[in-house]
């Protein structure tokens, strides 16, 4: 996994890396690791499904949410995240990825949006977009 190095003010959860593993039957498994800076713990989320760019972008989002759910559980935070949509589109003349997440907290549901420019590794961009959408919960990067 490729680590990120920049630390930002207010950051408590950091994206560490994403890994794509081919699986038999034209499928793939995506793993996303997040580091919780407060206590040094890390959480690895996993999602598996069909290969192909669009499928894998969604798998990257699902794996990131899987890691966040583990973190939420560890923090005893009564929040639930469900992935709604992932889309690639053009913004500022470049490709960007947008994720839509349904969050439920204290019996109230909200739709959260996150955005990240698409870089070389699209799955990484998706993970960053998920963290951007949920950053009010975790001060994530």
């Amino acid at each position, binding site marked *: 996994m490729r680590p990120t190095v920049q630390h930002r003010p*207010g950051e408590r959860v950091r994206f560490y890396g994403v890994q794509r593993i081919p699986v038999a039957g034209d499928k793939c498994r995506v793993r996303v690791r997040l580091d919780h800076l407060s206590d040094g713990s890390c959480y690895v989320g996993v999602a598996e499904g069909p290969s192909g760019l669009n499928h894998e972008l969604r798998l990257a989002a699902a794996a990131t949410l899987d890691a966040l759910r583990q973190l939420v559980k560890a923090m005893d935070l009564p929040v639930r995240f469900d992935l709604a949509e992932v889309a690639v589109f053009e*913004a500022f003349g470049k490709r960007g990825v947008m994720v839509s997440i349904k969050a439920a*907290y204290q019996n109230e549901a909200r739709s959260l949006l996150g955005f990240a420019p698409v870089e070389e590794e699209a799955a990484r961009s998706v993970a960053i977009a998920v963290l951007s959408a949920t950053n009010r919960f975790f001060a994530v990067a």
Partner: protein
Amino acid sequence: MKQWLARRIRFLKSSAEHHGDLRRVSVELLRPDEGTYVGWSESPSSDVDLLRAGAEAAAEAVVNAAGTVDAQVRVEDIERVKVFGRDVVVTLVSATYKGQTFSLFGVCEVRDDDATAGALAVLSATNRVLELS
């Protein structure tokens, strides 16, 4: 009002007024127990882009609310896109805080007026780096 998550800064309102040939957009933010902070943006009435005007007014208000002399926020770009069948504003902001400059993206679905959407997109971009939400 039901509490979602505690915020250190809260969007209160945006407003747009004509002053001669100029259109002035203001954005007001609230820091609980500290008061309100307002930012303004002016542009010719004939050439007004309410998305950008709301975003620039919010950037000024955020700097005021940050309460430090070394905070700067600049709206580099702002665009309305159609994603998931919804109108969404995406903005690119450069924010300088504690001697470091960050390029930040913010998003907001357009639900009310354009100025409000532009302002909320800037808040979305800056909320973590400026430790305001």
